[in-house]
């Protein structure tokens, strides 16, 4: 009896702690934003949809339970073609992409952080640009470079200037998909690994060296263990992002009849076969879930993350010597090719009045500032004086800022709750549930939100057609980034600081405001910036949710791409990229930060 009383008092005490209340509150919100959609995802795979009414030989009653979709997707010719083969392709492409992300990311990180390479600042700035570009830009540039007549395509730059025709496997299929996705997502790896490398106190390595350890021994026993969490996080992000990416495999795989799970999901959802498409989405979820599990096992093996303490971190840089300049030049050339060339090409194209004619006399600002002329793009005025484009640009900025701020703040608070009670069930639940949206492909996430928020449900009004729904879906989908950065920045703050404040009688709010928030401000800003960048160039998440009143730049650009307004849509892509760059750098200049921290790297 007494024991029960004690336990009850303990429980009551816990509930008096603000973090417990916060944890409960966040759990409720996350259940609504993440678990309910997930439930609806599973449910859709088990009932007949409206598009199924055309199926013959089955008793289709819309909304009634059926195992038809699962039977179709698990065995038989259809499953073979739509599930198993694309699954294999997805695994191959993802493995290749992750390998490239890790290789390029860690090499660049090593060069910038641990060596005395020249122009390190420039390299650092250029290294993150590919992440800012919309995902379709690199794949379209790839085609511009390699397409040729052996694949029944017009001549690309390679063929035009050298006469060399690239073979089909280099133009379409798994190899180009891996390379372009790897080059698009390596900034993840770069940011995470460079963050980890920076936190290594080189005194550790030096002491080992003094004690007679060999270089490879130091690498194996000191350097690798410290950056291992960053490597695993990179791999996990790489897996989750590249498996869910639709644009790249659609552009570089589809023409050669090479299908991945993401393209099959898109096809099935587009043709009103959600029941079957969502099964594939669950498969993606399961694979990423396994990755997440492995990742957590690896990270939880490390006991302390606290690096903000009284001691300084010293780092000694490796001298590149006479190789310095050549390596730096090579690196910069590589980055220019990956990051800047596509952008220059797009800009140039947007300045050509007549498509495909790159002569000086054909240069024009028509698609930027021209007045409506029915001869070009059906009379659309240039983008800078185009109401629809400007409205969409404003919406994009607004959405990114509002979504980013909410996300950043929520991430920080969740991070606080998780960090303060690392072992509590609520913490683990919070951390895991908040990561789920990362694993759901954007197109599916958007479709789920459309169904869920189209009508009034309890206290939540019908949000479809409102700006609030776009904010909500952005926050839910991008929360994994800020929760990760929130948790890792909160973990860096040693608990002793807060304990001292408690002893001095500071209230919870005072502690949060005066100690925790200032110390983790970097993580907050960095998380916000990552959300900002990611949501500004996000397409598939919004494509089903936008209405005329609240469309964003990417969805509008995609429509213009669909109707073939090449120069016009290229101008819009350039505008979008400029907006992202300007916003990112403005925030960075205002609040000195490093977006690597936004990925939870430090």
């Amino acid at each position: 009896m007494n024991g029960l009383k004690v336990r009850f008092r303990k429980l009551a005490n816990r509930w008096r702690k603000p973090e417990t209340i916060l944890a409960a509150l966040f759990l409720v919100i996350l259940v609504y934003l993440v678990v309910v959609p997930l439930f609806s995802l599973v449910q859709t795979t088990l009932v007949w949809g409206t598009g199924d009414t055309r199926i013959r030989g089955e008793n289709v009653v819309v909304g009634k339970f059926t195992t038809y979709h699962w039977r179709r997707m698990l065995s038989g010719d259809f499953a073979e073609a739509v599930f198993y083969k694309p699954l294999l392709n997805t695994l191959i492409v993802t493995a290749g992409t992750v390998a490239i992300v890790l290789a390029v990311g860690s090499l660049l990180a090593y060069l910038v952080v641990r060596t005395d390479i020249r122009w390190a600042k420039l390299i650092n700035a250029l290294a993150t640009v590919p992440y800012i570009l919309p995902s379709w830009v690199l794949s379209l540039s790839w085609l511009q470079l390699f397409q040729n007549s052996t694949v029944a395509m017009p001549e690309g730059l390679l063929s035009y200037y050298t006469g060399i025709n690239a073979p089909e496997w280099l133009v379409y299929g798994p190899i180009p998909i891996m390379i372009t996705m790897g080059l698009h997502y390596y900034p993840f790896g770069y940011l995470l690994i460079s963050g980890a490398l920076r936190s290594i106190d080189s005194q550790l390595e030096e002491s080992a060296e003094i004690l007679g350890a060999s270089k490879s021994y130091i690498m194996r026993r000191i350097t690798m263990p410290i950056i291992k969490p960053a490597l695993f996080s990179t791999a996990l992000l790489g897996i989750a992002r590249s498996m869910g990416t639709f644009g790249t495999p659609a552009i570089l795989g589809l023409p050669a009849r090479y299908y991945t799970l993401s393209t099959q999901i898109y096809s099935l959802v587009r043709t009103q076969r959600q029941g079957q498409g969502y099964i594939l989405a669950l498969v993606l979820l399961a694979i990423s879930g396994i990755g997440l599990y492995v990742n957590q096992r690896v990270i939880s093996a490390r006991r302390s993350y606290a690096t903000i303490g009284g001691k300084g971190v010293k780092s000694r840089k490796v001298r590149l010597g006479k190789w310095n300049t050549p390596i730096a030049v090579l690196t910069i050339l590589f980055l220019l090719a990956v990051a800047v060339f596509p952008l220059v090409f797009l800009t140039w194209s947007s300045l050509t009045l007549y498509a495909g004619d790159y002569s000086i006399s054909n240069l024009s600002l028509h698609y930027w500032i021209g007045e409506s002329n029915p001869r070009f793009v059906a009379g659309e005025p240039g983008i800078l004086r185009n109401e629809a484009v400007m409205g969409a640009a404003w919406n994009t900025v607004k959405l990114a800022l509002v979504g980013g701020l909410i996300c950043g703040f929520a991430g920080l608070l969740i991070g606080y709750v998780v960090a303060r009670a690392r072992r509590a069930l609520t913490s683990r639940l919070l951390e895991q549930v908040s990561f789920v949206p990362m694993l759901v492909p954007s197109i599916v996430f958007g479709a789920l939100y459309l169904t869920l928020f189209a009508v009034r449900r309890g206290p939540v009004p019908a949000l479809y057609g409102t700006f609030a729904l776009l904010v909500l879906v952005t926050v839910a989908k991008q929360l994994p980034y800020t929760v990760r950065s929130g948790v890792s920045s909160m973990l860096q703050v040693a608990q002793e600081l807060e304990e001292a404040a408690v002893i001095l009688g500071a209230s919870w709010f005072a502690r949060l405001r005066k100690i925790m928030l200032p110390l983790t401000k970097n993580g907050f800003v960095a998380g916000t910036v990552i959300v900002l960048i990611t949501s500004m160039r996000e397409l598939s998440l919004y494509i089903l949710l936008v209405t005329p009143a609240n469309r964003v730049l990417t969805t509008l650009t995609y429509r213009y791409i669909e109707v073939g307004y090449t120069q016009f849509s290229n101008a819009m892509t350039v505008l979008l990229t400029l907006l992202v760059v300007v916003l990112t750098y403005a925030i960075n200049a205002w609040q000195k930060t490093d977006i690597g921290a936004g990925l939870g790297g430090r």
Partner: protein
Amino acid sequence: MRTRFIRSLASVTLLAVLGACLGVPQASLAATLPPEVDAWLREVEIGPYQPSAVDWDKVYEAAKKEGKVVIYTSSSRTISLKEEFESLYPGVTLEVYELGSTGSIEKVEREQLAGIYNCDVLHASGYPSQLHLLANMNMIFPFYPPELESVIPKEFREPLVAQRYESRAIFYNSKVYPECPIDSWWDLTKPEWRDRIAIVDPVTDASSLDLITTIVLNADELAKDYEREFGRPIRLTTPNAGYELLKGIIANRPKIYARHTDLIKVVGDPNSANPPIGISIPFSSLSYAEDPARGGLKLMVATDIKPAVGLLYPSLMNITYKAPHPNAAKLLIKYLFGTNKGELGMRPFFVVGNWAARIDMVEEPVHEYLPDVRLPLSDLNFWLMDPVGIWETSAEVQDWWMINVQ
């Protein structure tokens, strides 16, 4: 074509009757509508309650009170109508939302299912889905200006109202091939076209799925043409000659493009030495041919293909259930029918390769850069869309394609 056209007329009429039996709202069946739907239709006078004469001044007055009209359209060309419509009817704003056919239909369906009434006019093709997913579910209803009754054939008024005909056909590069290099669908299965065919993805593009489904539905004609082409009866390794044709095309390793706008750039590239033959491109894409703004594409459509040049289908415009601006919607539909010279709302669609619903057109559209190209519908031998047949067969054809294409 003429006999075909009559036959198609007959089949469409038959379909209308069939549709009526299936529950498509017809005047005689209005009583079977749910009471709230019936009440709304009666109130706004559309569908079965369309009056035999409309006082357009009154409609305009009511539309001004509504203030705007929202159209979900499949065509980017609709955007250019905004200014003219608004100057014609001051006080009524035209809000164009261009979503593609599949996107428009999906959005209307999802909105209606959720009880959200955003859209007034759905202006898109996708006849089979519109008929089965929307019209049969009382989500869209026909309306046409009654004064045009005599110039709009019945199949363009019932069960749904259509603005024009669109089509899907075969295109080639006119610079590399001054003459069309093929004259039968079966040519595409010959080894010389290996790696030199491209097609719009029938899985993601609804009209392309309609085309390949139509190929399967017309298997008998294709079997006959096989015999004419190869001089021996077809030996089937698939369920019918339609599938056999698709199998032969797939065996030639076609490149697949998500959108026909991507495909025309590849087919018509003026600098390409080895352009592919493009399958499932709309006839109206011909308007991009030679246009310098589009890169001077060398595009030409194959007009002499046996047994048919491609698929002909109506592009529809109907009013959604509980449209928030029903009077403005009526004005918009009247405007979209245009004049018999292809003016007003018909102007962007009065191009070579589009054919107006109204039969009183006094002239043929002229191509800006190819003035010699005239393509009257009566000269072309099309398969006319069978919306019910496609609805019932397309899932099977789509499955077959997804299984066999890899």
